[in-house]
């Protein structure tokens, strides 16, 4: 199935009142963020999308693919499911070795096994510190390795035109590398995020409160300029995070050098 767009029609917030955003359409290639305080319903919104909600979830929302209700086979046959969801889960409960799990999932998603497994592990290992070994048990993976594998699995094995990602910034993975890798694919990406870098990289963002979509904000030219500055600051912090990880001691000298490199000191 070729996906042109995905529409969410508004339902009710937690107070039972109609959502201020009554309809939003995401087009192929769009990068969208969902923002809002913890507990405001961000995960619920992307779960509604993944379930092809049809007024049958607590929010009463509807999800349309290419303007129509999704066929039941989208959710009952994973090979025809156009959506991959990377949820906030940071551990697997599955008692299988990584390669067996990926091989079954590749079959389920109608793929050739061998190549897809290699590619998935290659992708995942670009995002982790310590590489994932293909023979280790899924349950042995760390939180970061789990999330990295889920992202790689969704993109490579899932090969889905619509990818929903729930707070990948908290995943303990190379977030900026993940964003760079993901941007190479043309898909609808939906990021639930608290991270200004991810939010401003999006074409637009949905602001949520009290279970309801409140507003859609387009990332304008001015925000684009702000984003460029924020990226520099973020890289600076990431650089120091990495030094700590590698066991370095930090010095004022290094701090000064880095600040100069960013143009904050002359």
């Amino acid at each position, binding site marked *: 199935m070729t996906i042109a767009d995905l529409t969410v029609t508004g339902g009710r917030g937690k107070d039972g009142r109609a959502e201020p955003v009554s309809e939003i359409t995401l087009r192929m290639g769009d990068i969208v963020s969902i923002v809002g305080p913890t507990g405001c319903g961000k995960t619920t919104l992307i*779960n509604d999308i*993944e*379930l092809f909600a049809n007024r*049958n*979830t*607590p929010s009463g929302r509807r999800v349309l693919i290419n303007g129509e209700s999704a066929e*039941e086979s989208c*959710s*009952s046959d*994973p090979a025809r499911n156009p959506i*991959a*969801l*990377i*949820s906030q*889960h940071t551990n*697997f*409960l*599955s*008692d*299988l070795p990584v390669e067996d*799990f990926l091989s*079954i*999932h590749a*079959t*389920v*998603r109608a793929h050739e096994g061998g190549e897809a497994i290699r590619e998935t592990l290659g992708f995942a290992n670009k995002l982790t510190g310590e590489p994932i070994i293909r023979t280790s048990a899924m349950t042995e993976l760390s939180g970061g390795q789990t999330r990295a594998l*889920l992202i790689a*699995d*969704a993109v490579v*094995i*899932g090969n889905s035109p619509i990818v929903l990602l729930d707070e990948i910034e908290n995943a303990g993975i190379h977030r900026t590398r993940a964003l760079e890798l993901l941007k190479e694919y043309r898909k609808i990406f939906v990021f639930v995020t608290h991270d200004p870098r991810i939010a401003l990289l999006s074409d637009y963002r949905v602001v949520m409160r009290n279970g309801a979509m409140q507003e859609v904000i387009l990332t304008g030219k001015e925000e684009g300029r702000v984003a460029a500055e924020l990226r520099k600051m973020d890289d600076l912090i990431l650089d120091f995070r990495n030094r700590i990880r590698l066991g370095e001691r930090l010095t004022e000298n290094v701090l000064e050098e880095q600040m100069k490199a960013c143009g904050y000191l002359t």
Partner: protein
Amino acid sequence: MKLVICAGPPTTGKTTVLKQVTKKLIADGRRLAFLKIDVQYAEEDEIFSSEFSIPARKVYSGELCPDHCNVMVLGDAIEWASKHDAEILLVETAGLCLRCSPYVEGLLGLIVLEATSGMNLPRKIGPMLSLADIAMVTKIDLVSQAEREVFRARIQEAAPDVSIIETNALHGIGIDPLVRRIAQANEIKFPLFLRGNPPVGTCTICVGKKEIGWKQHFGVVRPLEGEIFYQGE
């Protein structure tokens, strides 16, 4: 009247699924009755009668295998439910015996499994899964989409003909397809028969002889090495 037998290992979400089903069927104007069979403790009867005001009761199997107990009492239970003018009788089993799956020929058999249970479970539970019509997979909110899809594949491998429905039973998500299947299910037509073949089980352990080792028993016995055979007259 229709009969739905709901099996599944302990705490997989049988009651939670049946509550969601009951809510929807009552909203559609259907009259229901509910029976829970368990070994020594159950409170489902109180839940169903207080939450939905439908006729609900429980049976403790005590010394009897709860699924054998089910086969014994089911006839009376259908009579009880029809006296109460029910259109659908929901039976929640204890889900302890995996071998003597309590489904009835021609009538809807439902197994409830949880997505959190590990990938080998579908291979372990035998007839309770392979003889069911529908497998409801609960707790999908607790696992990743990828795991859910692999779990689905493992169920389908063990039971190629079963329909799989995934649900977050706490929020009633994914319940509608099950409700539709119940509404379309066959009506009870006597005589009723157990689906599949019940396990061979006539031995002296069944009647209370406790000594360990097959040499001490009569009836259908088996040694560690070798097949079952009949010992005695």
